[in-house]
């Protein structure tokens, strides 16, 4: 039994955070939702007059819905690439490394880039992919090309590589956690019953690791949908993600209601993705995490 806290004590502990979150988080969200239903005049001022104009524009004007679709496709591509890249490493650490201390060391190596500045990691690809960068320099020395390729940097390709690079730890961490939870006895049982390595991998390890894989892929998907920096830093003139449209609408184009509406559409999509992903994670989870 515990001593009862008075309501005043409870309020003292809890209220500052509740007030903070209402004032600086909920109200701003409510505000842009309201703003998304207004319109802006020729000078970019918000006119208080309720209309669904912005939403209609998003779903009828090609610039908006096509960019939205393209961003979704890019996000899926990034998520799948991150999964493919993380899988061998996570599998290796979970099943092939025996000593606990080496496991911890390798896991730390995966987690570390997670904490390294986004801008620093994005920047590294500028050195590698640049016109006089390492990739071009390497290709020139090997004689595979005779002139530096200009199209590598500032393209959709560069943007995707950069995002895959940045988001791989986000995918690898939950994936490794899921693979590590798979009882080794199950894998041995499969082998004893005559399953080859590939069969074991695809019929035991992948299905049992699926919740972690889904959760990691969701991170990559959602974070790409909200990213506006990689396209600016590494993308070409035509690399435009939906978040860049939001950024422009709040900047040079100065149409805040439309910008808010695009933002709300992104939010709605992300909430949908998260819900679907949680559903599948639950559906495929065989072990209740303790």
């Amino acid at each position: 039994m515990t001593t009862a806290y008075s309501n005043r004590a409870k309020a003292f502990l809890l209220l500052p955070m509740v007030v903070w979150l209402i004032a600086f988080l909920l109200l701003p969200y409510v505000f842009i939702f309201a703003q998304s239903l207004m319109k802006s005049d020729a000078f970019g001022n918000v006119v208080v007059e309720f209309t669904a104009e912005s939403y209609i524009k998003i779903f009828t004007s090609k610039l908006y819905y096509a960019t939205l679709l393209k961003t979704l496709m890019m996000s899926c591509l990034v998520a799948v690439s991150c999964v493919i890249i993380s899988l061998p490493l996570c599998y290796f650490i979970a099943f092939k490394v025996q000593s606990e201390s080496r496991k911890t060391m390798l896991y730390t190596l995966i987690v570390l880039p997670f904490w390294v500045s986004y801008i620093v990691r994005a920047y590294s690809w500028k050195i590698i992919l640049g016109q006089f960068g390492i990739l071009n320099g390497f290709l020139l020395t090997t004689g595979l090309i005779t002139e530096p390729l200009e199209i590598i940097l500032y393209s959709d390709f560069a943007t995707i590589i950069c995002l895959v690079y940045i988001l791989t730890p986000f995918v690898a961490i939950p994936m490794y956690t899921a693979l590590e939870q798979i009882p080794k006895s199950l894998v041995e049982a499969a082998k004893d019953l005559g399953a080859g390595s590939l069969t074991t991998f695809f019929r035991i390890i992948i299905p049992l690791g699926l919740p972690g894989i889904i959760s990691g892929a969701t991170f990559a998907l959602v974070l790409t949908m909200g990213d506006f920096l990689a396209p600016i830093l590494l993308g070409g003139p035509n690399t435009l993600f939906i978040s860049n449209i939001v950024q422009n609408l709040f900047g040079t184009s100065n149409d805040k209601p439309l910008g808010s509406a695009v933002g709300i559409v992104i939010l709605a999509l992300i909430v949908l993705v998260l819900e679907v992903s949680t559903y599948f994670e639950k559906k495929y989870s065989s072990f209740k995490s303790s």
Partner: protein
Amino acid sequence: MRRIFTTGSAALVLAFIYLPLLTIIWYSFSAESVNSFPIKAYSLEWYKVMANDESLLRAVGNSLRVAFFSTVIALFIGVPATFALHKFDFIGKKLLERIVLMPITLPGIVTGVAMLSFFPKIGVELSLVAVGIGHITFLLAIVVTQLLSRFKRLDPNLEQAAYDLGATPLTTFFTVIIPNIRTAIIGAALLCLVLSMDEIPVTFFLIARDNTLPIEIYGMMRRGITPEVNAISTLIFLATIVILILSLRFSRKTND
């Protein structure tokens, strides 16, 4: 053969993760004024340029100040609230737990433009103060997630012993509970510092004239690549590793 394949592909992935970072460190010692391959001469030139770049140094100062104050305030607001979330049941608790996580589950750009639109309406003009408020809001999510699991592992008998000895709940909170989870608090604080120092999407929209470090680097990259960025990036990378090692130390102690 299969063994070589598994080990090889794992090694390749690690190379993919680390080679780009090592590249920056390597290039930071280049003497040339463009990032060209191969590097023809080495020097510490770009570290000197960096050390004399006043606007960069100002940005470092701004970032440190924002990170420090945001972390301290987020802890002051977040730690007691996390304890309450752990301890009490109340109406709307589940909702509050979801709301506090919004800034890290929802994209930073939407949070950024929402704050950009709303803050001036309540008298918070775009400035480093606005940036700090934005940071505190998402750091609360970090504090709550980091400390909630720690509170759950706290021995309830400690608290009971304090009551039996006549301490009031608030005295118990400040003199028994907080000291017992201090390593977890320090660990969370270090993570908050790193995240605040790195934050771009929200900062991008709330900034006025005074840049934070990542925004300053962003500006340098937009103006054209200068190898100075290699030098500052190398230092950021090294600082992150030091802080990460420290925070791992603290979180490991917590587990004992």
